[in-house]
């Protein structure tokens, strides 16, 4: 059950039902005590509504805009890199690896006794001996690892920004 004050505040705010409003109208008209309480709360309401917001310092807007400009200036090189290029490079390597895997699997002939590999005659594989002790391959995997770390970092950073205001 609401108190008289609570009902009167709802009446002043206009948040009471039509039925309640009519009942309070009657009470204000007939009951002296109710009327004086209503007038007291109404005067308080007007007083609260007359409150003026405080004024920040003169240079407030300038400081905000300076803060924004400074943030832009400090933008790291990492953030300025075009994401499309990064995704393109990543995509190229993924497609290359997938094609190699598919090609290898398609040339396998599985038998119950042994596994033999028959490469197409037209396919000429480079002589692996020519590679200086797999250095190129190591470089390739190293680059892939760096790329993977960069993408994970970008993903986690994005997640962190999104959750900041949650």
């Amino acid at each position, binding site marked *: 059950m609401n108190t008289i004050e609570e009902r009167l505040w709802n009446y002043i705010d206009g948040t009471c039902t039509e039925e309640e409003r009519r009942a309070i109208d009657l009470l204000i008209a007939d009951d002296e005590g109710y009327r004086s309480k209503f007038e007291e709360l109404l005067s*308080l309401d007007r007083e609260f509504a007359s*409150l003026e917001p405080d004024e920040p310092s003169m240079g*407030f807007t300038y400081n905000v*805009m300076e803060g924004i400009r400074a*943030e832009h200036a400090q933008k790291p090189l990492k953030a300025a890199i075009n994401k499309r290029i990064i995704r393109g490079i990543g995509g190229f390597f993924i497609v290359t690896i997938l094609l190699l895997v598919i090609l290898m699997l398609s040339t396998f002939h599985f038998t119950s006794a042994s596994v033999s590999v028959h490469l197409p005659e037209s396919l000429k594989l480079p002589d692996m001996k020519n590679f200086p002790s797999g250095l190129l391959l190591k470089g390739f995997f190293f680059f892939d690892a760096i790329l993977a770390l960069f993408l994970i970092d970008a993903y986690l950073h994005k997640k962190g920004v999104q959750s900041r205001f949650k």
Partner: protein
Amino acid sequence: MQSRLSDIELIEQTLAGNQAAYADLVRRHQRFVFTLALRFSKNREDAEEIAQDCFIKAYRSLLAFQKQSKFSTWLYTIVYTTSMTFLRKKRVDTDSIDDENTYIQLENHSSGLKSNMAETKSRSYYLQQAITQLLPDDAAIITLFYMGEQSLEEIGQTLGIEANTIKVKLFRARQRLKEKLERNLKDEVKELI
């Protein structure tokens, strides 16, 4: 002419790269954002820092603004979150705002002003003083309702609370504000006698 533009139009201009439009948006909302931050921090320097931080955060997340609510409601949500983080960082015990020591401190502060400001003091001065003595949440609800002209639903959206709960909280905040206003005025009369 710029001042006639709506908040949404200014946001669109900002997103198109016009920083001056955002400066207009800041000018339009800075007083209220600062006042709301002041309700939490109780200190002008801290409030200014919070308010500036809020506008920078809002600029950064402007793309995320869905335009489903008023820009002001969205902005006040940022103010509320930033202020709460600030309070947590500063380890301010919000209950202490209402304790006896703080009250005495505020009274002493006002006593110092009394000697030379007695004539200029108005009821609104006592009202401002009473608001500073409220708990941050109470002061914020009163400020949002009366100064921010926010509906109960919008306040609920800002503070992440149901509109019905806000209604009850607003009622209690008004009761407390009324009590503090009466107590301050009574003390003033006693001192004058």
